[in-house]
């Protein structure tokens, strides 16, 4: 078996596929040498805490992209979960709130899953609809006001840390391990790769493709709910506009990590790098004093660049 012969084509494709992550690495190295406050233990811990909240959803988005699907509604499920979690915390206590929020995330994911897998609406149209509807629901329930909670257990969880590492990175690490096991060692996980690689072939070889498509949306809903709850534990509040560009962030992190939008390849372990690089980039921009709208601009630009490079690498592969 030939393994990675270093011919010109292979190097070219490798360079294109990893261009963005390399550019970001160069940027990070430059930051380490120019900005003293960037490469300190405090800031690194801060970056890790920061990125883990969104990272949980990014992992689930990676699974969806491996299955050649895509979910816009993750940001709305996130916002809805912060709202629901805080309301339930105030009403029934934190344990019930946890399970209710998790269940609501799963139900919303399942709704997306039915639309895409059974009704066969293209994922982006279906999730565009659910995105609007769920966001509207969060606004309706809260009347567009932020809701606070003073639940002591939640506060204790939010403040809990080991050497500065809070609960979020621990959950993130657990989610990554579960997903790696799920994708690599379970039948459902392998089926997701097969379904994403070639839907028709997977169907004809007897894989329950509809179930594969369904389950990824349920996982996404659950993970977005977990992200929302982690976010709540830090800021003790729920509000409908939270998580505005979560979906965009997750897609960008996944593709920077090296999971192709074509589907059928990639893995959750790669997304860790993507999530970290995105977090480092925006942390560095904040340290450099770049303002909000400029950061938004750069966020969009990073997404476009990443997608373009990924698609060009795929074009080379196709030919």
């Amino acid at each position, binding site marked *: 078996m030939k393994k990675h012969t270093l011919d010109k084509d292979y190097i070219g494709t490798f360079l294109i596929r990893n261009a963005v992550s390399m550019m970001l690495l160069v940027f990070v190295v430059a930051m380490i040498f120019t900005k003293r406050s960037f490469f300190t233990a405090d800031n690194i811990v801060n970056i890790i805490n920061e990125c883990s909240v969104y990272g949980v959803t990014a992992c689930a988005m990676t699974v969806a992209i491996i299955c050649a699907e895509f979910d816009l509604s993750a940001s709305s499920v996130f916002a809805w979960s912060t709202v629901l979690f805080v309301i339930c915390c105030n009403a029934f206590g934190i344990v019930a709130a946890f399970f209710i929020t998790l269940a609501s995330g799963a139900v919303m994911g399942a709704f997306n899953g039915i639309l895409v897998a059974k009704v066969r609406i293209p994922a982006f149209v279906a999730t565009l609809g659910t995105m609007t509807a769920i966001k*509207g629901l969060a606004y309706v329930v809260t009347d*567009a006001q932020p809701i606070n909670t003073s639940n002591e257990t939640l506060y204790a969880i939010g403040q809990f840390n080991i050497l500065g590492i809070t609960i979020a990175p621990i959950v993130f690490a657990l989610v990554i391990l579960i997903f790696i096991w799920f994708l690599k060692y379970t039948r459902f996980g392998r089926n997701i790769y097969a379904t994403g690689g070639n839907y028709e072939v997977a169907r004809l070889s007897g894989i329950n493709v509809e179930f594969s498509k369904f389950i990824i949306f349920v996982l996404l809903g659950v993970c977005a709910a977990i992200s929302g709850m982690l976010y709540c534990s830090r800021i003790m509040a729920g509000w409908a506009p939270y998580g505005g560009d979560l979906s965009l962030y997750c897609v960008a992190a996944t593709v920077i990590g090296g999971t192709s939008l074509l589907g059928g390849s990639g893995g959750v372990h790669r997304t860790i790098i993507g999530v970290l690089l995105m977090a480092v980039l925006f942390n560095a921009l904040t340290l450099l004093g770049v303002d909000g709208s400029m950061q938004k601009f750069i966020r969009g630009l990073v997404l476009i660049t990443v997608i373009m490079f990924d698609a060009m690498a795929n074009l080379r592969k196709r030919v």
Partner: protein
Amino acid sequence: MRKLTSKTIRNAIRDNAIFIVVLLLIIITAFIEPSFITWDNLLNILRQNATIGIVACGMTYCIIAGLFDLSVGSIVSLSGVIVILSINAGVPDYLAVGYGLLAGIAVGVINGTLVSLINGRSGEAFIITYGMQVVVAAIALFPSNGLFIAGRVKPGIFMSMGQGMTPIIIFLSLAAIMQFILVKTRYGRQLCYIGSNISAANMSGIRVKPNRISYFAISGLMSGIAAIVLCSRVTSSNPTAGLGYEMDAIAGIVVGGTSMSGGSGSVFRTVLGIIIIGIMSNALNILGITAYHQQVVKGLLIIAAVSMDIWNKRIKVREIANEKAYIG
């Protein structure tokens, strides 16, 4: 001549289910609030939805071509900011309007070039224009740091564009022109062909890439026109004015009945869809339902309309298969 059998009636109901639901809503609202069906209110609905209608007409071309343009809302914001800023800087009206339109076309061309460069289908177009939406929205925020800009507008061409009946006339005449181009010109027929099968279109000698860039450019241009009508109506510009326009436009298109899978559709249907949504939200307003509830309704409406379209197609395919089996 189609015979009026139970089957054709059933088909007609199935094809127009959304229209029937809205008709019911209109009747209910008219009973509760008779002022709902007055000529003034209807004109008002048209005027309110003219800007979104213009955007939706442009996006219809993209959807028919099997593409997507999510950046339209941001283009509306950006063009508005540019027009008002140039008018405040003392640029003559027609030039300021020209700058606004140019900005729209420029963003459209960038969209189209990026998508053509990677031979993108609707999925790639969706994500790239999503990125462009964020980028362009950020650019619109730069000049005023996100603040609202009041325009020092003097009476003239620009000011007249948003007053009285003009927005309605602009909307309907643009829609008519675009429908004519779509149905009666070679360019329009090529658009449908590219949308239904891009490889076949490419092999039969249609120059796919420049055509696809032009669809994005048209979508950008129409967003620019919408921005001008909007800014002229309020004689100011808000850098987040176009927020959510893409959703409303897509809602209008799918409710009108243009298929999301591309290859077919019409601008007239989009106009109809926009009017239906306008009437619906007007009726919901009269019934005292808040904007946030309406957002939920709109999201579900998109899902319902697309599901219906896909379901209808599946039934039709099955019927054709049955007839063939019967003959064979």
